[in-house]
């Protein structure tokens, strides 16, 4: 109990307590020694005093004793008896007659236990009065220890008072000094805690007495040396904790066993998957836990075959309720820091839902294939119909365009001839309108014909030499008047780098440009 209490006491309290005990012991020993010395001195003093007193009293009383002058003897004894330590002084003649003076014993101020401790008894001394060989009586002195005890007790009280004051002063001084001296240590404790919590850049300021300052300096040096490794370790620990938490909280069953097939770790996922708690599984063998896919390659590891690798497998299991479920296994050797195999790790996952989905998918695919085949046949037939319709349309358009364009060319020729005749303005206007409308209609027909060719895949481009600038300028010139009429200006600018002598279908090129310019003029305000 004492050692437990002592361990809980702070350094300040220990030093204060120890110092106080030592001081108390020293002063108590000193006080006891002083008192014992004083007692011995007083005993000797009593003996000496009695001897000396009797040496004085005897000659003083001798003549009166010889004369038998009792009244004078009483007068002589009375002053002596008035002394504080004298309890009784007696003269007794040879016949036994006494002259005794008793003094009032002062009241004891010392407690009873102290009086018993001191063992100071009353001192009594007698001396006969012999003169020339004749006994004239004897004188007795009884010294009482009370005044002396009171004096010693006063010394003790003053000593204890001094002890008390000394203790208080010492305690205050020690506490002040320790508080001052230990402040750096308290700060060091706080700094160490902060350092331990990860504040590795922390360095405590050097202060306090040399012993403590050197400790602080040692801490700083140590902190400087281990800060970097600690930071790395701390980071690794965090990673390990995170990894451990991840493993523990993983939905997958993650378990390890040693080279003897004894299960070492067993996470929550394993508990859920295999219906076995960790405290039941850890320590047992993989065989006892019915884990067939773990530990199977251990024998190979033991013989040191380097060909051991990670493996994957699936199995079908039955749970405690008799339900079938599927598990996928991924196993790998568990290696130590030196790369030596120390066991095996396995990760198992419940793939029953996946299996169910796979089955559903398989069935769906089969159905889909059938439907696709059906749809494909339908589409093939529809395609054939559509292609036939398209060909009919194209043939119709081609035929119709050809049939319309021929008479249209006749109309245009006639209107052109008509314009070259004398016509009043109104007629001319009518003819011009017919010509322009016919021209526009011919363009539509050509376009339809082209479209039909394109769709029928019969559009053919001619390949002839032409000059690009001429072809472009001809088209622009055709639209110059219309542009001018709308208040627009149209210009042709061909970059010098563009080659001029080209081979191709200039008519199709001009057709493209005409469509573009026409739209441009049409939609330019």
């Amino acid at each position, binding site marked *: 109990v004492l050692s437990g209490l002592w361990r809980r006491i702070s350094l300040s309290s220990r030093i204060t307590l120890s110092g106080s005990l030592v001081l108390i012991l020293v002063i108590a020993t000193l006080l006891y020694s002083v008192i014992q010395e004083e007692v011995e001195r007083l005993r000797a003093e009593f003996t000496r005093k009695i001897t000396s007193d009797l040496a004085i009293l005897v*000659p003083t009383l*001798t*003549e009166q004793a*010889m*004369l038998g*002058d009792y009244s004078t003897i009483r007068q002589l004894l009375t002053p002596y008896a008035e002394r504080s330590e004298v309890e009784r002084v007696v003269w007794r003649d040879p016949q036994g007659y006494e002259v005794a003076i008793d003094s009032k014993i002062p009241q004891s101020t010392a407690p009873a236990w102290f009086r018993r401790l001191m063992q100071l008894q009353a001192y009594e001394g007698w001396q006969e009065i012999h*003169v*020339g*060989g*004749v006994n004239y009586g004897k004188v007795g002195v009884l010294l009482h220890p009370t005044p002396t005890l009171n004096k010693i007790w006063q010394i003790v009280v003053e000593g204890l008072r001094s002890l008390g004051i000394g203790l208080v002063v010492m305690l205050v001084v020690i506490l002040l000094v320790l508080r001052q001296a230990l402040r750096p240590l308290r700060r060091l404790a706080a700094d160490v805690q902060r350092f331990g919590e990860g504040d590795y850049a922390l360095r405590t300021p050097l202060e306090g007495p040399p012993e403590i300052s050197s400790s602080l300096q040692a801490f700083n040096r140590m902190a400087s040396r281990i800060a970097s490794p600690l930071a790395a370790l701390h980071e690794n620990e965090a990673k390990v904790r995170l990894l451990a938490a991840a493993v523990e909280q993983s939905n997958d069953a993650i378990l390890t066993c040693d080279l003897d097939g004894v299960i070492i770790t067993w996470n929550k996922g394993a508990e859920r998957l295999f219906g076995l708690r960790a405290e039941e599984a850890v320590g047992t063998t993989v065989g006892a836990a019915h884990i067939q896919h773990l530990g199977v390659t251990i024998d190979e590891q033991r013989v040191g075959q380097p060909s051991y690798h990670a493996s994957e497998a699936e199995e079908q299991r039955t749970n405690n309720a008799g339900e079938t479920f599927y598990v996928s296994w991924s196993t790998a050797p568990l290696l130590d820091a030196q790369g030596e195999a120390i066991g095996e790790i396995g990760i198992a996952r419940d793939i029953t839902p996946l299996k169910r989905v796979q089955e559903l998918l398989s069935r769906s695919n089969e159905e889909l294939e059938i439907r696709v085949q059906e749809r494909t046949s339908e589409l093939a037939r529809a395609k054939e119909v559509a292609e036939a319709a398209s060909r009919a349309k194209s043939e119709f358009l081609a035929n119709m365009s050809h049939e319309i364009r021929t008479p249209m060319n006749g109309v245009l020729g006639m209107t052109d001839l008509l314009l070259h005749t004398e016509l009043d303005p109104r007629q001319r206007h009518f003819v011009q309108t017919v010509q322009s409308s016919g021209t526009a209609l011919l363009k539509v027909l050509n376009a339809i014909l082209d479209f039909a060719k394109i769709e029928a895949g019969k559009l053919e481009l001619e390949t002839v030499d032409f000059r690009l600038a001429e072809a472009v300028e001809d088209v622009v010139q055709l639209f110059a008047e219309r542009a001018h009429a709308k208040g627009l200006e149209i210009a042709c600018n061909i970059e010098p780098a563009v080659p001029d002598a080209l081979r191709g279908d200039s008519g199709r090129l001009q057709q493209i440009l005409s469509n573009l310019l026409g739209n441009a003029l049409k939609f330019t305000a």
Partner: protein
Amino acid sequence: MGMICWLLSSVPLLAQDTTLSFGVMPQRTITLNAQYWNPILHYVNTHSGIHLAYRPNKNTAEHAAMIREGAFDFAYSNYFFIPEYVGADYQVVVRPAEAAIRGDIVVLETSPIQSLKELDGKVVGFPHKAAFVGYLVTYDKLLHEGINVEVVFGGNQEGIMGQLKAGRVVAAGVNSQVMRDFAEREKLSYRVLWRSQDYYNIPIIVHPRITQDKVEAVRAALLQMSQDPEGLRILKESAALIKLDPPYGFVASGAADYENTRLFFQNALVHSE
């Protein structure tokens, strides 16, 4: 049994239970007197069977009164020579063995004083008032001669001799023997202006009520002391206390030896305390 018989035979037949008082003239302190006389009295008690006990007195007046009243059975005193105390009729038993003493009136050798007459009006020293030859006899002489001097006491014999040597007194009344010893020791030269007749020292006396056989027993014991080694030892030790020179002990004596003493006191002009 033999031892008891021997003890009984060693005790004189006169041994009695009664204790007889022994007074001592208070020349010295009571204690010193007791130290001196108690061993002697113990010897006498042992060898005479008479139990003598020292009876001290506070002062000379008390001693003188007890002499006058005959209160002491035995006494070492010369007060009984004084006329007013003779009524008790004490008788001399023995006297000290020492030689008779004389009183001298002396001056320094260098003193111009040649006769007692020249001391008239001068300062003269004496040991103390109880000194028989040193004061009573010498001062009584001056009084009889009609010489008036201024009396100074020195406390004891050598005290007044010291004052004489120092010149504080012109002359001194001294015991002749003591003066001679002092002068020899101190290399002091002096002249004797007057010397008294010889007087025996103080005797041991007994009251007439004491029977003769007891007196004789005491006397015998006292007289044999100096002859007995034990007695002589006691005498020497007691004498040493008061610096008394030999011869020690006592010798037989009677009234005749003190006739001049008795006459002196009878005619003395000096008042004795």
